[in-house]
């Protein structure tokens, strides 16, 4: 039996209840026991003074690439969960593009088991849409859900076949799960390494046009409308996608969407000097896209932020731009980047940011969490909104260092992360 814990005097923000007030939070038996300005403190309680800090429901990242099984040199479930805890996340969703692909109940069960063994941030597996992510034959959604999968996706690559996407959306209805798609029309994107625009023209790099994403966004919302299925659009990057999602939501289509911190902050200019840490898919776009994505996140057209954490070994990124892999790590910078740029930048209020990194992403995949409701599991993030720090990849918990934010000065940092009342990260230790 662990001692009761009181987080005393913090700014308690719970978007699930529109709560934003200075209060104590009592955690007992792994659950939220009470919240209030002057709650009783049980005998022997451990009292943490969190004045000046924010007490929020644990952050939730619904789009993470762990490299286990297959590339444990780059990340494991345990190291990913540790990095997530340091980033303030109490739950993350692992994409299935592992080696072998997480496309069956045994593979899903393995992720769950590794997560339990690590005993840190909760790791929820996402199963593959198609066997081997080959885009041909539906994977066994029912068995994967039975083993713990919370959604299905072929992320890393798009569901190319319109027919397969349609059947996936229809079949997923039985289990009430979303089909998450990486929107990329492959013949338009083929060979592309960055956004198609003036910077790509100058650098002589092959571009990926915005239309490559938007065509698939349009297809997916039409198929969701046709089937009544639930589609989730991963890592949106263009203003055109925002327009399509806005119109689909107005029609009542069951569509949700996420955006990464880097697409909210960086443009294709980050690729100057062939910086491979700015190589990601979808690519960093233009300033007008960044503005549209921020507005969409504010309005709720885009539901939430997800990191698309994608670890790659240092020497893989140490290559010519064409030859480097896509993707960056993001778990340990997501909150601070979003807080610095969006909250301090005047786009979102702090409660709005917490909603988009906790309550709303939990809702997208129907996960427990995202709330401080008494009786709920004590998945809690304590965030210091005033802490200034400089990103030093050498101090990351993730195994990889591939970030475009190295050296960046940020404001705001997770200081304490609790999963079911257990401390999984404590910045003061």
């Amino acid at each position, binding site marked *: 039996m662990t001692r009761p814990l009181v987080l005393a005097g913090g700014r308690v923000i719970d978007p699930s209840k529109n709560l934003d007030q200075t209060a104590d939070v009592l955690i007992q038996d792994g659950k939220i026991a009470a919240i209030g300005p002057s709650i009783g403190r049980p005998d022997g309680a451990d009292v943490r003074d969190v004045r000046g800090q924010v007490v929020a429901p644990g952050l939730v990242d619904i789009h993470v690439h762990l490299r286990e099984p297959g590339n444990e040199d780059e990340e494991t479930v345990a190291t990913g969960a540790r990095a997530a805890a340091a980033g303030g996340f109490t739950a993350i969703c692992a994409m299935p593009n592992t080696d072998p692909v997480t496309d069956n109940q045994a593979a899903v069960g393995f992720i769950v088991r590794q997560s339990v063994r690590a005993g840190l941030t909760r790791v929820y597996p996402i199963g593959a849409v198609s066997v081997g992510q080959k885009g041909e034959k539906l994977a066994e959604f029912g068995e994967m859900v039975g083993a713990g999968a919370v959604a299905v996706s072929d992320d890393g690559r798009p569901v190319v076949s319109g027919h397969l996407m349609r059947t996936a959306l229809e079949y997923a209805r039985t289990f009430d799960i979303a089909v998450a798609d990486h929107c990329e029309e492959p013949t338009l994107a083929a060979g592309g390494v960055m956004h198609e625009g*003036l910077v*790509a023209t100058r650098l*002589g*790099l*092959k571009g990926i046009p915005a239309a490559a994403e938007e065509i698939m966004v349009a297809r997916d919302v039409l198929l969701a409308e046709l089937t009544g299925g639930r589609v989730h659009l991963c890592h949106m990057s263009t203003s055109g996608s925002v327009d399509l999602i806005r119109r689909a939501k107005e029609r009542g289509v069951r569509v949700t969407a996420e955006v990464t911190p880097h697409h909210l902050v960086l443009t294709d200019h980050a690729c100057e000097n062939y910086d491979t840490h700015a190589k990601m898919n979808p690519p960093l776009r233009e300033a007008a896209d960044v503005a549209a994505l921020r507005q969409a996140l504010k309005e709720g057209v885009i539901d939430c932020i997800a990191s698309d954490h994608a670890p790659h070994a240092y020497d893989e990124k*140490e*290559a*010519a731009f064409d*030859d480097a892999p896509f993707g960056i790590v993001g778990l340990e910078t997501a909150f601070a980047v979003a807080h610095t740029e969006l909250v301090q930048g005047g786009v979102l209020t702090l409660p709005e940011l917490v909603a988009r990194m906790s309550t709303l992403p939990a809702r997208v995949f129907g996960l427990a969490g995202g709330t401080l409701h008494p009786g709920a599991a004590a998945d809690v993030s304590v965030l210091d909104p005033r802490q200034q720090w400089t990103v030093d990849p050498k101090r990351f918990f993730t195994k990889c260092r591939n970030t475009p934010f190295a050296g960046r000065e940020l404001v705001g940092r997770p200081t304490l992360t609790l999963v079911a009342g257990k401390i999984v990260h404590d910045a003061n230790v």
Partner: protein
Amino acid sequence: MSAALGKDLVGLEALSPEQIRLILDTAEPFKEVSERPIKKVPALRGKTIVNLFFEASTRTRISFEFAEKRLSADTVNVAASGSSVSKGETLVDTAKNLEAMRIDMVVIRHPSSGAAQFLAARINSNVINAGDGKHEHPTQALLDLLTIRDKLGKIAGVKVCLVGDILHSRVARSNIWGLTKLGAQVAVCGPHTLMPRGIAELGVTVFRRIEEAIEWGDVLNILRLQLERMEKGFIPSLREYFRVFGVTQERLDRARHPLVIMHPGPMNRGVEIESRVADGPHSVILDQVTNGVAVRMAVLYLLAGGKPELADAAKRGAAE
């Protein structure tokens, strides 16, 4: 290390107009070296240079090699096939190994855009870009500039149109930077499937039809059409390309005044250029090749720390 140009020549985008003029002026006296019975000066004696070619090249590699030898450098040629590169060695490992052999300069040709800059950032030797992917081919543009200056006596105000596959062309990009920096008017002309996004924002005019380009220009720099562009579906056929975009004598005859005809080679006769044009009186295609050696000598000389005074001396000679 040369203060005049910096450590490397990666592209013309990063050079100032003064630096470009310095290279062209330095090339003038080196032209004469190639006309001597004994074509050698001791400027780079004792320097070791590696010509590192990850992509097939005949003209550029030979041109660099002559330039190096006529400056008395010791040179080694490394081609991608037959080297450890074809055994999967990474670019960074190749760079480190070269550095470990204490060489002075590397001339690199590579299929990936940015490869020259990648190498330059990781080794202490001078790096000269001999073409990286679709990015830049600075010495080609410099020899084009020198040829235009030779032929027309100036570059500022001259109207130059680059014709053909702009999308995949490093020659086009380097020419656009070099020409615009020296005050030329620049246009591009080709099928829109081979036109990069936002090209007009680099300060060039885009012509839809070759007839309009001929009507407008003083110089046509006709780019090679890679045959694989047809296979990849950018154009329907070479036949149609020649019909629509081919630079023919018939089309040139309608121009108000004769146009200077340039081509970086190797030519596809009967595809982008008609033989009569390539071999005609206004073609400077072989002058480009001759100037290539002089320009590369100038670049090697300046990067090795050679004194720009040589260029000044040449200019004084011209004034007498």
